[in-house]
């Protein structure tokens, strides 16, 4: 047990001996530690052994290098990949898709409302035609609606009321879907 390296350095200086060797100490601390090392055999021996190990590690640990064809192989791999899409571009694409979907829904709703109105008008005309046929065969019914132009005014009013009701129903359905009018 006479070898001072086996005892180890002074505990207070152990870390600073390493930092002194690695050049990590401030000039002031380095001066203090050097002074201590000059006076302390244990620390001097340990620091010398540490320096020897450090030199061996630096000299003998493998220092591999990349192959000369590394870049060309990397380019080869990248050439098979699609150009990546930026996050901002991706967001724009999603927003475009969303707007397009909303627009098509609005158009479909508008078309459905228009078809509903046309259907309602056709139904009204059909009802009116049927009523006219009935009135032609029933004097009692006809007497309820008056005679001559007065009868036609009454029938027109009835038809217009049904048409307005149908349009209002259609508009109410479109409003309930919350998509508004087409742009």
């Amino acid at each position: 047990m006479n070898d001072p390296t086996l005892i180890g350095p002074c505990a207070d200086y152990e870390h600073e001996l390493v930092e002194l060797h690695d050049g990590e100490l401030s000039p002031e601390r380095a001066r203090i530690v050097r002074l201590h090392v000059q006076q302390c055999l244990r620390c001097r021996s340990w620091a010398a052994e540490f320096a020897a190990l450090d030199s061996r590690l630096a000299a003998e640990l493998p220092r591999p290098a990349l192959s000369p064809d590394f870049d060309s192989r990397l380019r080869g791999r990248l050439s098979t990949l699609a150009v990546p899409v930026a996050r901002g571009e991706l967001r724009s694409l999603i927003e475009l898709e969303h707007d397009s979907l909303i627009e098509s829904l609005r158009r479909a709703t508008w078309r459905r409302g228009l078809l509903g109105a046309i259907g309602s008008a056709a139904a009204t005309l059909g009802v009116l035609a049927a009523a006219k046929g009935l009135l032609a065969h029933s004097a009692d019914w006809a007497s309820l609606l008056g005679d001559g132009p007065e009868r036609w005014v009454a029938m027109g009013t009835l038809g217009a009321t049904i048409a307005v009701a149908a349009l209002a129903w259609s508009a109410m359905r479109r409003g309930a879907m919350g998509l508004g009018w087409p742009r």
Partner: protein
Amino acid sequence: MDAGIEDLLAAGRHARAFDLVVPAYKDRVFRLACSILKDRAAAEDATQETLVRVWKALPGFDGRAQLGTWIYAITRNTCLMELRRRRPMVSFDDPDSTEAQHAAASVASGPAADPERDNLLRLVETLPRNQQEAVRLFYLEDRSYEAVAEQLGMPLGTVKNLLHRARKRLMELARPDEVKAA
């Protein structure tokens, strides 16, 4: 260098930015992969894989982390995936494990084709994995604590502590048997 790359990224010129990333980082990524994988061919494959991932992810880099920190994190993940893929393998991570004790014993009494160098490399193999990585990277990076801390994603103090413990342990292991027995 990184500022120029980040300017290109901010301008949406990802391909041009990547052209600068490769020469700036490929060697450091390779050295980090070497320190983790301990195998040149595997480290080169991991470097390729890392740079491909960087290429794919570069448009999403938002600059919240430093570019180097981000690239080294991708490197470490790539290497850890490779290590997981390799399992089962003999691990010397735990110095108290049976394998580590066996390895240390074989180091002390093993063959000596190139005794000095072989012994030293095998002694390094007996260290816990995080100490091995720190030691290998420290000497690959020309003894830069800061480079090791950045690449391993550890605080500087942690790296200093790891390196101190690792080299102290190596000093103890490297002493001749007769000195140890004295």
